[in-house]
Each structure stands twice: as structure tokens, then as C-alpha cells.
């Protein structure tokens, strides 16, 4: 009898292992999905250029009209003649505690603007570089009352570093769905006033104009320093 019980022991352990492994994978997958992308549903899609002028946006339970992007003005070119040199003196600082972004060229202040950082999911802090700029993309995520679907998000500048990978999709971008800057509102990205990010987009490296779809693949750009604790 005792021998039979001993014989079942490995099977019990195997069963336990399968249950715990499944649980572990479930938690891991959930954490990964939450952690991987700033926009959990669009994820990789939000890293690509897209224009959807015929679609409505959804935010805070309401339908909205995204800003129309004039495709006839956009060119596929990804380099700008005469401005291919990058300035290492450019940097963008984001103070999460005051929700203010400042852009400098050396010691000269280029821009100061109120932002909205992550509310439910924190904006990562540290030193980053812009790895891609795209004129427009689609972002979606959340669920239930927090579901959002935002086509034509304008002037997107993705940033990353060795700890926060490019694939997670953190970016500075324009915002047409709220006007509550100076207060955390986003899902981890840095929301900016559209008229300000347009100027920043044209100023920051890698070089791109508002008429271009995107920056050159592989071009690294302006340094972004994010610090402080959001209120």
C-alpha cells in the first residue's frame, strides 16, 4: 500500500508542475502584454506609419473625429537634403513631477510645453534616444470603459534605451482626444499639445519634416531625459 502511494508521487508532482507552470505562463503572458507595449492592442501596429482618415476615434466612451491627414502632402522620402547632420547638443527633458517638457539646443531653450504622462501605466524614466519618427499612426488599448482606439495620432517620436526596448512603443506624440495637459492622462507615452509637437518633430533628430511619412530606418536621434515622479 505504502509502495503504491510512493509510486504515485512522481505523477502528483508532475500534475502540480503542470498546474503551476500554466499559472506561471498565464501571469507571465499577462505581465508581458501589459509591459510590452504602451498601446496593448495595437502594439506592433502602432510602430508603423498609418493614415485612417475615414475612421472614428474612441476615447473615454465617446466617438471623436481624428484630424484628417492630407496624404497628398506626404512624401515617401525619408531623408532631408542639407540637414542630414545631427546635432548632439539637442536634448529633450521631461519632468514628470511638473508635467513639463523642455527642449534645449546646448544651453538655449528651444521649447517649453505642458505634457500628460502615464496615469494608469507609468512613463519610464531614464535617458533615451529617439529611434524613429512617423508622421501618423494608430494606437489602441485598454478595455471596458478604458478602451481607446485612436487613428491618425500625429507626430510620433519613439524612444528607447537598453532597459526599455524599442518594441514597447513608448513615444512623444500629438494628442487630439483630450486637453488636460499638465496632468497625467496617458497609458505611458508622453502626450503633447499638437501644435507644440509639430515644432518639436521638425526640430528633433533624426531629421524629418512634417511632410515626410517617417525617418530613415536605423537613424538614431535626439536624447530624451525623463525624470521625476508623476503626481
Amino acid at each position, binding site marked *: 500500500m505504502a509502495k503504491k502511494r510512493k509510486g504515485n*508521487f*512522481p505523477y502528483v*508532482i*508532475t500534475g*502540480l*508542475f503542470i498546474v*503551476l*507552470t500554466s499559472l*506561471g*505562463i498565464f*501571469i*507571465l503572458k499577462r*505581465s*508581458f502584454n*501589459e*509591459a510590452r507595449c504602451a498601446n496593448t492592442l495595437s502594439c506592433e501596429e502602432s510602430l508603423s506609419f498609418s493614415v485612417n482618415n475615414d475612421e472614428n476615434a474612441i*476615447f*473615454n*466612451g*465617446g466617438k*471623436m*473625429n481624428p*484630424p484628417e491627414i492630407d496624404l497628398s502632402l506626404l512624401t515617401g522620402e525619408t531623408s532631408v537634403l542639407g540637414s542630414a547632420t545631427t546635432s548632439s547638443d539637442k536634448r529633450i527633458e521631461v*519632468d514628470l*513631477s*511638473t*508635467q*513639463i517638457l523642455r527642449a534645449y539646443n546646448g544651453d538655449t531653450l528651444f521649447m*517649453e510645453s*505642458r505634457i500628460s504622462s502615464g*496615469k494608469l*501605466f*507609468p512613463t*519610464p*524614466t*531614464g*535617458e533615451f534616444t529617439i529611434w524613429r519618427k512617423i508622421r501618423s499612426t494608430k494606437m489602441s488599448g485598454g478595455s471596458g470603459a478604458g478602451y481607446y482606439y485612436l487613428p491618425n495620432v500625429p507626430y510620433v517620436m519613439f524612444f528607447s534605451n537598453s532597459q526599455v526596448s524599442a518594441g514597447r512603443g513608448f513615444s512623444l506624440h500629438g*494628442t*487630439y*482626444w*483630450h*486637453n*488636460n*495637459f*499638465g*496632468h*497625467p*492622462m496617458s497609458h505611458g507615452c508622453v502626450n503633447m*499639445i*499638437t*501644435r507644440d509637437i*509639430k515644432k518639436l518633430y521638425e526640430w528633433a533628430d533624426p531629421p524629418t519634416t512634417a511632410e515626410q511619412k517617417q525617418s530613415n530606418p536605423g537613424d538614431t536621434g535626439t536624447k530624451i*531625459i*525623463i*525624470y*521625476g*515622479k508623476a*503626481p
Partner: protein
Amino acid sequence: MEKHRNKFFTTFLIAGTLFIAGLAISARSRVEREVPLRSSLASEDVQVKAIKEEKAVIFSPDGKYTLTVYNASQTNGVLLQTFSVFSEEDKTPVKIFEKESNAQNLVSVPPNTFSPDNKYIFLRYEDSGKSRYIVLRTDAKDIKEGSKLIEIETLFAEKQSNFVITDVTGWGSYSLIVINTDTKDGKKGPSWWFDLSNFSFIRLSSRFN
């Protein structure tokens, strides 16, 4: 021999389980990690507040609409404040609000005044040392039947007697105004949406600090 094999098997399974659990915990904590690099800077008030005879210009977030505030001195010592809006497409200014003010109850333009679709603005004025907020349409039409403006404080007090408005910070969506409140006894209260589609107040579970 079999005993050793079982022992090895068990150890392997437990180690594997712990490894996976460790990975799950580490993935979760990585999201929350914050590395502050610098101390905070002082917040700067970007509020436009015209206190003498002058003209102030405020752009909407998309730059397509412009609000102008013109303060003109009157002979009786008060200021006539005129608020007008014009769009990028139609440059003709539309007068949306006019008020005779003095230094104690001057109307000012708070940050985030324009709704995201540029259909509304909200303004602030002082009344007996307290900030009050009004909402208007940018096309100068009635916002409510027979009324060009809505005064948020009065409407809120009628519906929510246990809270007082401390701040109106901006717009959570096209027609949702973000309101912060305290309780009547001075404790920090919740945030609310003021929904312009039906003039209701929706209590939120989180606060917009």
C-alpha cells in the same frame, strides 16, 4: 536508484516552477521601476491673466482656433472684458462673452481652456475669494436653452452637496470637463467629469492631480 531518480525529478520540477514564477514576478516589477535622475523643477503657471488694458491671444491645442481677450478701461474705473474666437478657416472673430470686471472679479483664461474639438471653452473668475468656472460655446450659440453660458460651481452645488470644487483642470474628451473636489470638511475628494452632453457630473475612481 529509483529513490534518487525521484528525488532528482522532484528537485528539477520545483526548481523549474520557481524559475518560471521568478520570471513572472520580475516581468511585472520591471514595468513599475522608476529611476529618478534629477530633482523636480518648479512648475510654471502658464495661465494668461490680463489685468490691465491689453490684448491676450490664446491658441487651441491644434492651432486651428484662436481666443482673444481684450480688456478696455471704462470711464467708471471698471474694465470691459471682451472674449472673441476665430478659426483658421473663417478669420472673422465671433464675440462669445463680454463682462464688466474689476480687479477682484477679473475673468481669466485657465490652461487647457479649449475643448479638444474646439467647440467649447471654459473661463475662470474670482468671486468673494473663490474661483468660479463658466463654459461657453466658441460659436456664440446657446450652450443650454436660453443661456449662453453654464456656471459649473452652482450646478455642482445643486447636485453634490458633500463636495466643493477646488480646480477645473481641462478636458478629458470632447464634452467632458475634468473637475477636482474636496469634501466639505476639507479632505481630498474625488475627480469628476462634467458631461456637457447632459450636464451631469460623473464621479471618477481616480483623481487628476
